[in-house]
């Protein structure tokens, strides 16, 4: 049988009925409509009768054709293929004007004798093939229209009519006949289901997102020559989404580990009060007004190198207190210093009690070596009001919660960044749609 079969020619030529240019076409048996690359006439030629000119695209500025010229060969999804046609389409707005232009490359696969389309809009590519089935749309006339297939929900993304703006190459159907079709796009990234319907028929297509570098590899184009992407494609998958479960688990583990470490630290060296003392400020009559005599606390012993927390409470009443404090190692003379300004004011105004400031202050000294210590206080307060008393408490190994919270926040930084990226991705995707949650 195979001996008698006539091999299908790889290509054939026909002359343009307008300008006579020889046009090479590749789907020798299937193609019937042609757009001349020279004079841009659009005509029908079925091989039996004289070509019939249907229109012309010469008045339209052609799109950039350098990327995938007609005749370019490649390998798409493992199948050898060739670019045989290109259509520039635009969405027909309600006011009759054209908006949102995109390109559709007609890809012929000679081995299987079928077609795919490569559509590109703002640098985002999709491969479109016949779905070979129909889908049931729920709430079809509403903005909540959706399709549920195999556990996936495809949400309505766009409804439109389109117009052919420009075309070149060969086609196995009348591309101008699409003017009467209404399209509805339902998305579940990276897949889109496209409903194409008119009064008589309904056809479904399945579009899959394809990365520009995959298109470049399929047709041996330099990846750098691909058009730059603008925004997020309708079915462009979110790269972050796939990492979210692992990211969540890992962050949870890290936070758990941090909490466990903090608890173990507190248990290993529980906070210990080394000193609790009440000191009375006494004015130094020999010094400038407001200067208090130096106060010296009782000695206390720190058994190991640790952080010290010094809590101060002053019995202030509508006054301020400047309190330089020295922690002195009685054996080595090593000193630590800090100054606290404490002020507290209160009163009654228009029957309302008010207060400002605080009577409390605290300081943390880190890496204090083991040894015997005392505290020196050099109080200075405003002259006049009663001299305050100072309650001082020294705690060794305080729970440094600030360390915990600093690291806690650091651990959340990257997940937060990814969360924002993900939210931004979806927002950008739906910004191009009239049916997004933001436009609801």
């Amino acid at each position, binding site marked *: 049988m195979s001996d008698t079969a006539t091999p299908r020619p790889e290509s054939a030529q026909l002359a343009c009925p307008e300008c006579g240019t020889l046009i090479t076409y590749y789907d020798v048996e299937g193609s019937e409509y042609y757009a001349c690359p020279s004079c841009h006439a659009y005509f029908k030629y079925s091989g039996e009768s004289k070509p019939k000119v249907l229109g012309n695209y010469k008045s339209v500025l052609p799109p950039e054709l350098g990327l995938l010229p007609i005749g370019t060969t490649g390998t798409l999804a493992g199948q050898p293929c060739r670019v045989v046609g290109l259509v520039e389409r635009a969405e027909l707005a309600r006011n009759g004007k054209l908006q949102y232009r995109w390109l559709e490359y007609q890809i012929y696969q000679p081995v299987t004798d079928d077609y795919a389309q490569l559509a590109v809009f703002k640098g985002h590519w999709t491969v479109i093939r016949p779905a070979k089935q129909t889908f049931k749309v729920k709430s079809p006339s509403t903005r909540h229209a959706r399709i549920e297939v195999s556990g996936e929900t495809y949400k309505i993304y766009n409804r439109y009519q389109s117009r052919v703006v420009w075309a070149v190459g060969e086609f196995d159907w009348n591309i101008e006949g699409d003017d009467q079709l209404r399209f509805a796009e339902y998305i579940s990234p990276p897949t889109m289901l496209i409903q194409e319907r008119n009064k008589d028929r309904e056809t479904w297509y399945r579009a899959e997102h394809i990365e520009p570098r995959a298109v470049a590899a399929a047709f041996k184009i330099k990846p750098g020559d691909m058009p730059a992407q603008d925004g997020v494609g309708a079915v462009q998958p979110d790269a972050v989404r796939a990492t979210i479960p*692992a990211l969540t688990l890992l962050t949870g583990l890290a936070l758990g580990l941090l909490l466990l470490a903090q608890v173990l630290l507190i248990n290993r060296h529980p906070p210990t009060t080394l000193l609790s003392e009440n000191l009375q400020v006494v004015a130094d009559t020999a010094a400038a007004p407001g200067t208090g005599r*130096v106060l010296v606390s009782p000695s206390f012993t720190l058994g190991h190198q640790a952080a010290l927390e010094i809590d101060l409470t002053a019995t202030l009443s509508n006054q301020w207190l400047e309190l330089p404090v020295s922690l002195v190692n009685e054996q080595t003379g090593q000193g630590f210093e800090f100054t606290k300004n404490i002020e507290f004011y209160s009163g009654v105004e228009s029957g309302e009690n008010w207060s400002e400031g605080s009577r409390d202050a605290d300081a*943390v*000294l*880190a890496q*204090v070596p083991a040894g015997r210590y005392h505290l020196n206080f050099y109080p200075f307060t405003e002259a006049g009001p009663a001299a305050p008393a100072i309650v001082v408490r020294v705690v060794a190994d305080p729970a440094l919660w600030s*360390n*915990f919270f600093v690291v806690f926040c650091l*651990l959340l930084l*990257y997940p937060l960044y990814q969360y924002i990226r993900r939210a931004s991705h979806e927002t950008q995707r739906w910004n191009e749609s009239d049916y997004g949650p933001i436009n609801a």
Partner: protein
Amino acid sequence: MLEQLWNFLRPVRLYALLLLLPLGWFAWGATTSRRLLGDDNESTETLNASSPGHRGGGHARFYHK
């Protein structure tokens, strides 16, 4: 099970390494009794307090018992 966990975490393995930085910083603060954002010590003598320095400067010179 460990292999499954490893495969699950594989997409974020670089982040896993990155996590070691803040956790290590926390451990360093804990073992050296430091407050990570700095403490309240103003003494130039003991700003680097891990080794006892020479005496001198500030109020610490005064009122030794």
